[in-house]
């Protein structure tokens, strides 16, 4: 969604943030980033890149060793109380007391945020309904499935209507159905104006949900922008042509080079070119091959994915990145 | 036949060694086996030492040397129980199923675990006797007496281990094993562990006659003090061996049942 008036302070602003641990290892090293109010910010990074450390600093669980971070306009160190009042947090590996029921947990969360009994009770019912747990609300959380736990976790983070919602890998380990249910909920929250700071290891999740994406590696931000911007930065789409058996590959390369610059291709029966105009390149390529008398078996256009962006800026791939990405990424120039 | 025995004994040794090393890698298991009995020894030996002034208290060279027999007994109870706890942990974690799937005799699994208990108990008893010695205990029964007392306690540890293993195999529950922890003290306190049998309250004195550990602790005391009037070592040995044989049989039966069920 588009950000509201530019006059309001950013939901999250981070300047020169550093966090060194014992032994001098810097998990976060000079991080700068800004999340505008009302946007969904996807925070990506390989394991050990400093993602979790950053989130823990932003939610006041960890103090930075240098730099500054403000959330909802408040300093995470000197105004920690105010930050806590304005954020909702659903941390990875949702730690929920298994002995309590979903309803009790929501009421307790309400009490922690200063709600009176009746208010906390009605808010709990409202949220159970919202995340589809009304029937399960009286059951102990120990008996919940993974998806139900995550939904409850999300509901607990929403009890006090936070301005900024931190979701740390909210769908890791969930089945596809539970995952899309959670995505729908995050979108609907964002439509209501809640800023969402989302860390994920699924690029598809970032593509689906995030207005902007920041990629962290080695403790600092190495790329940032909308998914489309980032992908454009990596390169243009590629057109792959699979030739019919016994076709003249050399002739096909000559014919196609008139349509777009050739791209290296390992497969002998295949030719690839850059396709700056995307799918519109397809008829041009087929006509050129037809005129040269070359038989074609199939044609496809492949756009760069966030995984390509990720590989380009970090030199590594993410776990689970193959989800939703097409099979032969090796041919996409990085 | 001989090859089979050799193979099973290798299995027992390997399982025993593993049981022992796990024991040393988990602080929660070390604390009850090596520290807790000494703490109890310290508070009882110092807190009740005025008891020596009681008229009927037997003549002993050191109160600490008298009370330490109870510590050996407590050590035996705790090392036996932790064997059961470790086994329940293996069952909950799935490791035990892997062992059950291995081509070894069922009884070897029990003997392997008990071998670990035995090794642990040997270390424990040496440790207790040594620490008590450093803190002023005397053993008029000499080295042989101390070795004999330690042996009684080690055999008892195997017996208690057998009982705990039988329970662990039948329930497979770590939390249940932990909750029977207080009953270790029931067995301990219903024997004349720290005071002479004649000085116990009458009810407890009558009750203690039915607790096999009574004869073990009295036998150990007789050996440590070199004074058979404090307890007959042979009766103690009979009680310890009887308990160990009975408990091992129970554990093997429990394992057979479990293997049949699964």
């Amino acid at each position, binding site marked *: 969604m588009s950000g509201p008036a530019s006059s309001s302070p950013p939901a999250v602003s981070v300047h020169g943030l550093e966090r060194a641990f014992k032994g001098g290892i810097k998990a976060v090293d000079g991080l700068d980033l800004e999340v505008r109010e009302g946007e969904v910010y996807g925070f990506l990074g390989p394991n050990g890149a400093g993602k979790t450390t950053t989130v823990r600093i932003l939610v*006041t*669980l960890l103090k930075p060793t240098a730099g500054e971070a403000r959330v909802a306009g408040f300093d995470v160190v000197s*105004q920690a*109380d*105010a930050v*806590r*009042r*304005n954020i909702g*947090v659903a*941390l990875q590996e*949702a*730690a929920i*007391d298994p*002995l309590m029921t979903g309803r009790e947990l929501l009421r*307790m969360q309400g009490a*922690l*945020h*200063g*709600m*009176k009994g009746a208010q906390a009770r009605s808010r709990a019912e*409202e949220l159970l309904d*919202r995340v589809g747990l009304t029937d399960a609300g009286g059951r*102990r959380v120990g008996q919940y499935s993974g998806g139900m736990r995550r939904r409850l976790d999300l509901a607990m983070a*929403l009890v*006090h*209507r936070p*301005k900024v919602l931190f979701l740390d890998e909210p769908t890791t380990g969930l089945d596809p159905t539970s995952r899309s249910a959670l995505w729908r909920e995050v979108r609907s929250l964002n439509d*209501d*104006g*809640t800023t969402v700071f989302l860390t994920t290891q699924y690029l598809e999740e970032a593509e689906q949900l995030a207005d902007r994406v920041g990629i962290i590696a080695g403790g600092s931000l190495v790329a940032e922008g909308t998914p489309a911007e980032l992908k454009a930065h990596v390169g243009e789409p590629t057109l792959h042509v699979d030739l019919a058996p016994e076709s003249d590959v050399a002739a096909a390369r000559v014919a196609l080079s008139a349509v777009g610059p050739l791209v290296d291709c390992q497969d002998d029966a295949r030719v690839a070119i850059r396709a700056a105009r995307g799918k519109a390149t397809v008829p041009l390529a087929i006509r050129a091959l037809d005129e040269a008398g070359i038989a074609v078996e199939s044609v496809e256009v492949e756009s760069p994915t966030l995984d390509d962006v990720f590989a380009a800026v970090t030199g590594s791939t993410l776990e689970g990145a193959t989800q939703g990405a097409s099979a032969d990424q090796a041919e996409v120039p990085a | 036949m001989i090859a089979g025995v050799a193979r099973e004994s290798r299995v027992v040794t390997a399982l025993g060694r593993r049981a022992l090393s796990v024991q040393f890698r988990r602080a*929660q298991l070390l*604390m*009850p086996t090596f*520290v807790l009995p000494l*703490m109890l020894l310290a*508070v*009882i030996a*110092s*807190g*009740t*030492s*005025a*008891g020596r002034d*009681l*008229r009927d208290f037997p003549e002993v060279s050191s109160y600490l040397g008298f009370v330490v027999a109870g510590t050996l007994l407590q050590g035996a109870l705790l090392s036996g129980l932790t064997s059961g706890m470790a086994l329940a942990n293996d069952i909950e974690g799935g490791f035990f199923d892997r062992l059950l799937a291995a081509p070894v005799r069922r009884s070897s699994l029990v003997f392997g675990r008990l071998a670990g208990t035995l090794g642990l108990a040997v270390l424990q008893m040496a440790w207790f006797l040594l620490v008590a010695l450093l803190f002023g205990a005397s053993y008029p029964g000499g080295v042989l007496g101390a070795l004999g007392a330690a042996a009684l306690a080690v055999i008892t540890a195997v017996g208690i281990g057998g009982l705990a293993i039988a329970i662990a195999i039948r329930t497979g529950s770590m*939390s*249940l094993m932990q*909750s029977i*922890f*207080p009953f270790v*003290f*029931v067995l301990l*306190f*219903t024997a*004349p562990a720290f*005071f002479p049998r004649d*000085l*116990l*309250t009458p*009810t407890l004195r009558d009750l203690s006659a039915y607790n096999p550990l009574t004869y073990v602790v009295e036998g150990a005391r007789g050996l440590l003090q070199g004074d058979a009037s404090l307890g007959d070592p042979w009766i103690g040995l009979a009680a310890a061996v009887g308990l160990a044989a009975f408990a091992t049989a129970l554990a093997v039966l429990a394992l057979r049942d479990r293997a049949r069920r699964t």
Partner: protein
Amino acid sequence: MSTSTDSPAGRSGSRSGGTNSPAGGVAWAFWLRSLNEVTRVRGALIGTSIAPLVFLLGTSGQFGRLVGLPGFPTDSYLSWIIPLCCLQGAGFAGAAAGANLARDIEQGWFDRLLVAPVARPLLVLGPVLGAITRSMVPVTLVLIVGVLIGGEVTGGVLGIVALYVASAGFCTVAAMWAIAIAVHFRTQQAGPLMQMSVFLGVFLSTAYTPQPLLKGWLEDVARVNPVSHILELARQSTVSGIDLSLAHTWPGLVALAALVAVFGALAMIGLRRMGR
């Protein structure tokens, strides 16, 4: 569905500030939750209740003849150790609060509490209140069983009050100590350390015999151990030789206040260090 109420526009301005949630409601919520540890865990009370009971029966059976020694203020050893076993039960209930907190820290639940706008002392007070409540079970059980098998209530109602004050106070001390350890080590592996110190604290005192009958090093340790004073406070309930009086009361209360102050401060310092 009520998504419209989730609009940020619906948030009142006053809630954006830095004030913490009201302490009463938060403490109540923590207290309710802590009760689950006993009401919803099967067999949870066995450990904390049976152990002091076994100790009561075992110790009185083993050492009952000690009252025959000159210098013992009562002729009932059972009456002498009922308060001891009450303190023991209360102390272990307190230590359990630390063990539970260490578990909450390990599993990540405590993070959820840390990010709530709750005054930090409440994060310590909650588990302490829960521990005090839970400690009432073993204390009451020991008292009832002790009296049923022959212990005497010599101090009347006020004596019983002194026993409960001493027990609740000692539970608070033990809980704060255990919480200080929990926030420092942040692992359940520290559990034995919490229990061990409570055990030593209780028993390296005038636990088994009165001060004049103690010998050797324990004589000195018990003299400086504040738990001896707390025991004296509690023993006004059942020990005929320790009559109800201010002289037997105030040293125990002072000891409790001092220990709560010291361990409470340690726990708070540890808590503040958690984010560093």
